[in-house]
Structures are given as C-alpha cells and as structure tokens.
C-alpha cells in the first residue's frame, strides 16, 4: 500500500476526527486571514492617507477672520489697538517662520474692503451679486497675498485664465497690480456690464470718513424689493452722502494683470449655481500684501491724528481691525514636524502671539481614526488568533497523535521509518489544511467585510474637514474615494499569501506535536 493511500484512508475512515480538524482549521484560518486582510488593507489606506496629508502647519490666531465665530467668541476678540498690535506681531512671526529651514513654503493673506471709482460686479448672476454688497456699490473685497504663487494657486484650486500671475518683484515691492476673478464686470449707470480684462485699471480708494452714512431701504414704499437699476441709484445717493463725510482719501490706480478662476466654480456655473467659494470668505481681487500693509500703516497714523483732533462723529469709523484670511506653511518633510513644533513654541513666546498650531498629525487622526481602530483591532486579533490557533492545534494534534499511538506503534514495529510516519501525519494535516483553508478563502473576505462594516459604516463615512484641515490634504483627497479603494483592497488582497501564511501557522504546531512520534517506542506501546 502506498503512503498516499494510507493518508487518504486515515482521513476518510476517521470522518468525525477529520471533520473536527477541518472545522477547527477553517475557523482559525478565517480569523487569521480575515485579520490579515483587514490589517493589510487598513495599513495600505493609512499609508495612502499619510501620503495625501501634506506636511503642513496651519495656525489658528487671534486675528483670524472671525467669519465663523459665535457672537460670544466675537465679543472675546482683541479689538482695535490690541488687534493692530497682534496683527503686527503675527505678521512678524509668520515672516520668521517662513525663514525656518524646515519650511519649504509659507503664505498668508489679509483681507479688507476698499472703495472703488466704479461699480464692480464679481458675478454674472444677478441674485448672488445682490448678496455681495461689496461688489455692487463701489466697494471691492481685496486680499493681500504674501507669495507670488499664492496658496490657492499653488494648491491648484484657482488658476489664471487670462493674463498672468504676480512676479516676485511685484510682491516684494507691493506693486499696484491686481488679479481679478474672471467673469467680473464694471457696471455703468444704465446697468450695462463691461467685462473686466487684463490691462484694465481699477482705482482702489482708501477713505477715512467722519461719520457713518446709513443706507436707504432696499424696499420701496409698497414693500417691494427695488430693482437693480434703482438699487444703483440708492448706492449713488449713499455715495454722495458719504462724500460729505470724507476726512482723507488716498486713491491708487491698479493695473489688472490677470484673471483667475476655479475649476469648481466653472463646473457649478454650468449647473446654474453661481456661488463662488474658494478658501476666501468672499471672492475678490488679489493684490501684493506689501501694498496692503503700507496702506494700513498710513491709515493707522491718519486715524490717530484725526481722532486727536476730535474729527470723528461716529466711533465705528476709527475701526482699525484687520483679519487674516488664511495662513499655511508647508514643511520639507513630515519628519521635521517635531523640530518645527519646538521652533514655533519659541517664536510664539518671542512675539506673544498666542497662536495655536495645527499640524497634519491631527488631521491624520481625524481622517484615519476609524481605520486606525480597525487596524489596531485586527493587529490584536491577529496576534491573539495566531497564539490561540497554535495552542489549539497543538493540543488537538497531540490528542489525535496519542489516540493513534497503537497505529503508529504497529507501523514502527513493522519497520516503517520514523520519517515516513512523521511525514504521513504531516501530509494528512496539510491535506486537511488545504480543504479548510480553501474554504476559508471563500469566506474570510466576507467575514472581514462584515467586521469592517460593523465598525465603519461605509455608506455614511464622511469626514468633514475644517478650512485649515483642508489646507493639509491634497486637492485630490476624498475620504469617500479612499473608502472605495478600501473595498477594492479587500477584493484584491493577496489571498494566496494569506493562505500560505495560515498554512504555515497551522503546520508549525502540528510539526511540534509530531516530534512526539520520534520518541515513541513500539515495544512499550504494543507488548
């Protein structure tokens, strides 16, 4: 009788024992391969996320644009002089941070509203244009940016559609050049629109007024909303009234060098949605920060003078508050983060800016948190399962070998080589393992899928990132997409490797227990 026949006979003629073994190995293999699949795929996604999270620091400062603050928080904000000093210090610390070796790129922007010599509308859409007051009554929201390749360009959120971007010299010198959103218009008295083009000029007017001039109502005597043309008249009337309160006026002519747009907006526009939303709180013109800062210094000086002379009839006109629109600092390497954090600490103390740094680690935890959970759980399960599997299989194969002691003794008494007996038992185990592991290959995927589903509700897996947090991830980053990648990984995980691994895990304890055969003496068993 060939050894193979002996092996098959021992499996088939002892069906209960074989089934117990198959079931046992099947369960263990499921747990092991399931947790390997889970571990592997979560690990891959984690790395994916890590790759997509840029080594970026974003600061939360006391002079941030208070757009999304609650009234209480707004009340807590440093006001006037305090705001001015803090902004000075913040800009100084930002400039110092930009110079750090660890920092590859840094950009920040301040926002302010300027008067203009003409009515400007930023949207072709009438309704949404109405909602942005600035764009319709000779006001323009302007952002001072500190880099030629300013952050939203660099990140690819916005891009030049016509003309060109700033040059470094223009940024340095605070040149009088402006980038406008594409699709912005001048509006004349007859409500005629003229598209703004490169080489057009826009006059930005910095005005100090003595009093606040209130608007006439947007509604007519009958309670109906007034038409745009009428509204322009309301603005005009208002502007005339303002002229009488002007204490100082500084007009600077800006040359439009380029138009920018974001792909997002263009897509939305096709759907009839004209709301523009990039990183800024409002759409507006971009100018070099240095122009902006010079202008501000001048304004601070003059307001102080006028105040000393008692020229202000309304205190709100003395307002010096300025806000940071965004700030972002890209590091050379994620590994620099600890050193960078320490440097920040020093700079923070030096300038007493009380800034909170938000690093990509926080974002990572937010995005990868649930995955991290599965990942470490599967690691734990894997370790426990490996240990328990080894233990169980060792005990069971030991029991089965002891139970077959007589049979082994008979074979040995007939002169069968011990190696042959050992390999027979091992081969039996391998055959059983193949059956069980083959089965588990079919089930472990759906098992791990179920585990993962119960921990992580896929369909509802959305990660809301704050504005700062969005600055820390690739533009292409999408949590939902990552999760679908995850599904794919579950599919394509290398089942073969996983199975071979389970096979080894099953064979190790069997091999150890089979060593027992080597010590068997047929005389003691049989006589």
């Amino acid at each position, binding site marked *: 009788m*060939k050894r193979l026949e002996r092996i098959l006979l021992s499996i088939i003629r002892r069906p209960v024992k074989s089934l117990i073994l198959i079931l046992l190995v099947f369960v263990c293999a499921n747990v092991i391969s399931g947790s390997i699949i889970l571990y592997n795929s979560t690990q891959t996604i984690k790395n994916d996320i890590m790759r997509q999270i840029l080594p970026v620091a974003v600061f939360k400062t006391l002079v941030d644009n208070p757009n999304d603050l609650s009234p209480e928080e707004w009340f807590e904000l440093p006001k006037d002089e305090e705001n001015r000093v803090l902004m000075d210090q913040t800009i100084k610390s930002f400039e110092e941070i930009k110079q750090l070796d660890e920092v590859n790129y840094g950009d920040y922007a301040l926002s302010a509203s300027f008067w203009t010599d003409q009515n400007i509308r930023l949207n072709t859409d009438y309704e949404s244009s109405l909602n942005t007051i600035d764009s319709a009554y000779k006001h323009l929201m302007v952002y001072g940016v500190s880099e030629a390749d300013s952050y939203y360009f660099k990140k690819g959120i916005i891009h030049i559609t016509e003309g060109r971007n700033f040059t470094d010299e223009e940024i340095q010198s605070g040149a009088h050049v402006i980038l406008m959103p594409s699709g912005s218009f001048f509006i004349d008295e007859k409500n005629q629109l003229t598209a703004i083009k490169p080489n057009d000029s826009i006059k930005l007017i910095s005005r100090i007024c003595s009093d606040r001039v209130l608007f006439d109502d947007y509604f007519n005597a009958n309670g109906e909303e007034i038409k745009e043309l009428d509204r322009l008249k309301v603005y005009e009337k208002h502007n005339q009234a303002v002229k009488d309160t002007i204490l100082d006026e500084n007009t600077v002519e800006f040359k439009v060098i380029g138009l920018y747009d974001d792909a997002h907006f263009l897509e939305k526009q096709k759907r009839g949605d004209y709301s523009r939303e990039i990183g800024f709180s409002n759409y507006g013109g971009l100018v070099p920060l240095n122009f902006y800062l010079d202008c501000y210094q001048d304004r601070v000086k003059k307001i102080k003078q006028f105040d000393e002379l008692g020229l202000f009839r309304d205190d709100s006109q003395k307002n010096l508050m300025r806000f940071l629109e965004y700030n972002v600092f890209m590091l050379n390497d994620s590994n620099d983060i600890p050193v960078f954090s320490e440097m920040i600490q020093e700079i923070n103390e030096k300038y007493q800016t009380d800034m909170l740094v938000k690093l990509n680690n926080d974002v990572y935890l937010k995005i990868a948190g649930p995955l991290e959970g599965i990942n470490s759980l599967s690691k734990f399960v894997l370790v426990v399962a490996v240990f328990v599997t080894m233990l169980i299989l060792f005990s069971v194969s030991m029991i089965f070998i002891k139970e077959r002691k007589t049979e082994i003794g*008979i074979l040995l*008494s*007939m*002169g*069968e080589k011990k190696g042959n007996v050992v390999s027979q038992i091992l081969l039996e185990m391998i055959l059983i393992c193949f059956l069980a592991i083959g089965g588990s290959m079919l089930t472990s995927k759906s098992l791990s899928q179920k585990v993962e589903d119960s921990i992580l509700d896929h369909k509802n897996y959305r990660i809301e990132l704050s504005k700062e947090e969005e600055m820390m991830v690739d533009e292409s980053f999408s949590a939902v997409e990552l999760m679908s990648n995850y599904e794919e990984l579950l599919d394509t995980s290398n089942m073969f490797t996983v199975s071979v691994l389970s096979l080894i895990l099953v064979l190790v304890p069997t091999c150890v227990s089979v060593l027992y055969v080597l010590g068997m003496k047929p*005389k003691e068993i*049989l*006589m």
Partner: protein
Amino acid sequence: MSILEVKDLTFSYPDGDVKRIILDHISESFDQGKFYAIVGFSGCGKTTFLSLIAALDKPESGSIMYQGKEISEIGYEKYRRNHISIVFQNYNLIPYMNALENVRVAMGITENPLGDDMTRLALEHLFSVGIDEKKAKRRVNRLSGGEQQRVAIARALSTNVDIILADEPTGNLDRKSSEVIVDLLSELAHQRNKCVIVVTHDQNVAKKSDKIINLQTIGMKLKS
C-alpha cells in the same frame, strides 16, 4: 547455519537505583522450518527476550545474528522491515482499516520482492488462514478475536520474511480458536519453511513445537 543466533544475551531493567537483571548470558540458535516455544513463569523475561530478537529493544550485551550478521549492523528498522514479522497477543491491527488493507499496509512497508498484484496476493494469504473475501473487506474491529489473530498471521506471512515471532498469540482466545492458530503457526514452520518462535503459557502450543526453550532454566541459573 542457523538463521538466527543469540549469544550471551544480557538485559536488565532499572529498578529504582539498582539494575534488575532479566536475561543473563542467554545463548540459543534458531533454524528455518522449525517451530520454537519459549516458556517460563510469568515475569521471567519471555516478552523481553522476544522484543530483543524482534529488534524492538537493544540488548545490554551479547549478540543477535541474522544469517551470521549482527542485526545492529543490518539496522534495526531494516531488519524488522525485511526479515521478521511479529504476531501479538492483542492482534494489533489498524482498527479503521479492513483485513485486506491491514495486510497491504505491511506489504507496502517491506522491501522484500512480493510480486505485482498485491491485492490478489493479500487475499490469497488471508484465504490461507481462513479469511474469505467478504470478511477480508470487513473492518477488523468487526471480526472476532480468532479472526483478527488470523489476519495478524496473514499479515506476518505477507511480507515474505523468514522469521515469525509471536508473543502469546493464543492468550486472548478460547481453546478451539487457539488450536487453529497454533496449527497455522506450525504449518508456517513445517510447510513454508519459516522459523517460528512463539512465547506461550499454553501447553498445547508447547506440545506441537519442535523445541521448548525454558528461559527460567537457562536464564535463571546464575540469578541469585
């Protein structure tokens, strides 16, 4: 020349701190075609002696020679595989196999040339000890004790060895079955030219043997 020769065979078991000598300088030779009965009181070392000539244990000193060659030189496993067969008191068949398969397992282990059609040969051996084809294909644990011992003898026969060793082969059987088994064993010696060595308490067995070896008279002489 004798097929098996035992010279000055000595064996002892450890008994606490001292050694308890069981076999002391035993010499004996065995020929082909002869039926030997080993007798002696219980505990005198019969089974021990048999296990030594079956190469299931190592003697302390002395030699066991198969056809003039030390069995340790042949190699214990190889010697067991190709030159001897053992029949046990409690049959020792593989319980989940049938009679035929039990015989074929043994035929698969020996290196002796047996012929091509193993199954037919095995069936012939089984038939020669009185097991028909129907019983041959029955699981051995559903055969009677006597039938199981016949299967064990067929298995011993099947590997075409010269020496057949048996330890109390009739110990578990009734008188009638015992007689059948003893007849079969003596037939192996006298008609098939095997050297059959049987350890027994059974007077019938001893009577049918060609030579009775009383271990207690040859081995105990020197014992204190």
